[in-house]
């Protein structure tokens, strides 16, 4: 288990990481999410013992990184953002150097190198100079280095950056397979990757933790407000009025003009999305407004992320939304009573 307690980092007067605490359990994949400059790499550098912390502590299996660095570091494998490879070395040479650095007993080195090379599919480039390898291969050589000696904890800083889609899948599968007897901390800015691979997620912004939870809980925390996307053809003001007045609709959050006569509404709901959807459909159809598209957007990590990161940005009223698509429509002609008695009709 890695325990991170009140970790703080100052760069001069600049506070990069502010008092963050979390733990990484055994056999867990922890995603580390945040926009650029959030302090992800700084935190990972501190956990791995490369950067000294300004305050707080990191304990790896009960060993404090700053008090007994050599012992603490022997339990981790670290792949930094830029793979730490020597361009003038051959792949095998490099891995054998790293095996020595990690104090793998001499007799086991060769087997261990074969194992990681096989795992990352770099056996056929083992005699090449690293400087002649492509970015993806360099990344994999760096990854192989982190896996040498089978450390209990792996710290991977954006391990899939620069890989082609096939390789990304391979690396993700490797990470998943590592879960059996390792813990992995894994930073990424690809949200789908994180939601696919990780058990828990830490979302960090401007050096402060915004959320730590499982992906399911985070997605649920966005609330019952499922998002509906409705695209209609024809009278936008009538459509807007109908949608706004349908029961279960919380508000219209966006209106986009698409082409001449098409309008896309983004609607957040209060009640069950399916009921609301059919209610809106029947209301619109009853008013002879053509629906060209309607679909429900499930809350996902992406919306959690955007919401947490942009929590300060203000909400727009419907007037502002109209302004964006070219001015207010004519005043509502519809009587609210028109809608009564039609609910639940399908």
């Amino acid at each position, binding site marked *: 288990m890695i325990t991170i307690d009140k970790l703080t980092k100052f*760069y*001069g007067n*600049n506070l*990069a990481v502010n008092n963050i605490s979390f733990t990484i359990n055994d056999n867990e994949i922890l995603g580390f999410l945040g926009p650029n400059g959030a302090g992800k790499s*700084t935190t990972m*550098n501190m956990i*791995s*013992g*490369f*950067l*000294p912390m300004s305050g707080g502590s990191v304990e790896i299996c009960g060993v404090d990184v700053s008090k007994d*660095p*050599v*012992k603490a*570091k*022997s339990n*981790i494998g*670290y792949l*930094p953002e*830029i*793979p*730490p*490879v*020597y*361009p*003038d*070395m051959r792949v095998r*040479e490099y891995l054998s*150097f*790293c*095996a*020595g*650095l*990690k*104090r793998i007993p001499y007799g086991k080195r060769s087997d261990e190198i074969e194992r990681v090379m096989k795992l990352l599919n770099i056996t056929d480039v083992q005699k090449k100079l690293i400087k002649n390898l492509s970015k993806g291969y360099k990344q994999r050589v760096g990854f192989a*280095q982190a896996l040498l000696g089978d450390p209990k904890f792996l710290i991977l800083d954006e391990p899939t950056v620069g890989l082609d889609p096939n390789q990304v899948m391979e690396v993700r599968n490797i990470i998943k397979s590592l879960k059996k007897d390792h813990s992995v901390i894994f930073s990424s800015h690809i949200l789908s990757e994180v939601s696919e691979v990780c058990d828990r997620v830490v979302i960090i912004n401007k050096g402060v933790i915004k959320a730590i939870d499982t992906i399911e809980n985070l997605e649920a925390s966005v609330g019952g407000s499922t998002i509906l996307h409705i695209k209609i053809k024809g009278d936008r003001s009538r459509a807007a009025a109908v949608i706004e007045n349908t029961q279960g609709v919380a508000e219209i959050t966006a209106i986009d003009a698409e082409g001449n006569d098409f309008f896309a509404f983004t609607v957040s709901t209060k009640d069950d999305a399916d009921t609301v959807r059919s209610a809106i459909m029947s209301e619109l159809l009853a008013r002879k407004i053509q629906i060209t598209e309607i679909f429900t957007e499930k809350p996902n990590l992406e919306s959690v992320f955007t919401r947490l990161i942009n929590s300060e940005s203000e909400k727009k009223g419907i007037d502002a939304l109209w302004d964006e698509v070219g001015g207010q429509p004519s005043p509502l002609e519809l009587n609210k009573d028109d809608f009564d008695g039609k609910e639940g009709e399908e």
Partner: protein
Amino acid sequence: MLSIYKKELQSFFYTPFAYILAALFMFLFTYMFNTGIGDMESNVYEFSFAGIFYNVIFYFIFLVPIITMRTFADERKFGTEVLLMTSPVNVAQIVLGKFLANITVFLFMILGSTLFPIVTAIKGEVVVSQLVCAYIGFFCWGAMYIAIGMLISSFTENSIIAAIVGEIVMFAFLFVDDFAQTGFIAQYPKLHSALYAFAAQPRFEYFSQGFIRLSDIVFFASAIIVALVWNYISLEKRRWNKG
């Protein structure tokens, strides 16, 4: 430490680097030897190997920084510093491993020069004690320059800058005693003796005459230790300052 030592040696010997350096050194030594032999005809000049070493040391200023310039600058440039710092080795081991590797390359470089005394001994006469002492002095001086060159390499991530600054500093160390003896400095005895304390040349002179004095050994050893400890501090400090 051993793996760092081995890796450093690989980077010298798996590339033409060490061989070119050794060839260059041999070329310089041969040149000095030949001019030395040529000058024997004149009665004023007394040929000795120590004299050749004296001349060769001047060229050290250009050779040693080439050995040491990449030591830490390249680690920083390629981002491999992270690998060393996050491996279960401590900084002192990193510094020592690299220092020993550089020393090995240096020894390899001067190895070829032993050919000349051997041949001379077969065909003529060599004062062995003086020669051995000169070699020891030569080695001490080289080791000191290597420690200084490594220290300078740890200040920058550009190996060319490390080489140029190294040359300047080594030049200063070579001529500090000449500088101390200039009329202007000699006016101030305290400044003169302070500068003179840093001078390696008079100490080498004892070695080349066949003396091994404890004070000279201590001088070179302490210079090496100061440079290596400073090197350690410089690497640690760099981590603290990062950002």
